[in-house]
């Protein structure tokens, strides 16, 4: 999956630059230079985020996350699931099997949906990076709205599929 994604992105970029060099080779060279310099500029940050994700993944064990999701009753279980989803980091490919595992373990559909949504939508580890690009207001607005959205979508999913916590 990752390889396919990278190949598609690569093809798009190559096509773009073929067009660019045909149109104006000076402009294209400048764009490449700018892209590479920005890439190098952000590289330390990027490495740090991935290393931090590694730390989170190893030191916040899945068993701990599983024990948080759906803990408590009613709305509280929704909130704990959202928080658990916010702190976990890692590729989504590992999120879905974990979600299935949670359902099997007896977590409600709503709690599982909230957990998965907040995992994908809210980026706790990448907040510093987001701030460096968009600024604080944008970052907090976006993550706040995503957090709320994860909860709303999860509750609606639970209501529709009859898996609300009692």
């Amino acid at each position: 999956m990752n390889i396919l994604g990278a190949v598609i992105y690569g093809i798009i970029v190559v096509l773009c630059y073929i067009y660019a060099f045909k149109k104006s080779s000076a402009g294209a060279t400048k764009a490449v230079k700018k892209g590479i310099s920005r890439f190098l500029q952000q590289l330390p940050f990027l490495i740090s985020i991935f290393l931090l994700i590694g730390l989170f993944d190893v030191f916040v064990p899945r068993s701990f996350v599983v024990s948080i999701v759906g803990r408590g009753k009613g709305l509280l279980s929704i909130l704990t699931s959202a928080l658990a989803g916010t702190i976990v980091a890692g590729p989504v490919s590992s999120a879905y099997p974990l979600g299935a595992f949670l359902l099997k373990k007896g977590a409600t559909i709503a709690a599982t949906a909230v957990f998965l949504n907040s995992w994908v939508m809210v980026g706790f580890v990448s907040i510093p990076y987001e701030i460096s690009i968009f600024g604080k207001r944008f970052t907090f607005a976006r993550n706040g709205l995503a957090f709320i959205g994860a909860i709303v979508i999860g509750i609606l999913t639970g209501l529709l599929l009859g898996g609300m916590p009692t």
Partner: protein
Amino acid sequence: MKYLKRYWFECVVAILYITLFFILPSKTSCALKEGVVMFVKMLPVFLCVVLFSSFLSAFLSPKTVQRFMGRKTGVKGVLLGALFGTVIVGPLWILFPLYNTLLKKGARLAVIGAMIGAFAIKTPWIPYAAGFLGWPFISIIVILTIGYAVIEGYLMEKVLKGSSKNKLES
């Protein structure tokens, strides 16, 4: 001092690693390995994203962006943004430079907000996810997420209305 301010995040991560390495060396090296592997896997994608956004910022005319994603596009533009967001794969934040370029070119905040919101849906992943969670679960989440992404876009525009565009670009 200047460097500390610029590289505080890197410093925090480094300090965390050094400290943890002394306490729990085997677990820490495990984390390091995982982080490095993920980083190497994502590196080509990130390079593509950065090159793509520098291409766009040099060759895409603001007029085009404004026509498709600008202030004048109504619900259609926002919906289109949300749909576009579902096609992209990779971690959410890897595309931030691209979104920023589009914003600078005059894309409407609601469109970008919807795009980021809809990013939670990874279309190529859907069959895989359904294999684990079942189609009803996934279909409902997908539909609701697209709907919410549109709302999120508009809400972001409302919330951030006060902040000038310049602040966003700095």
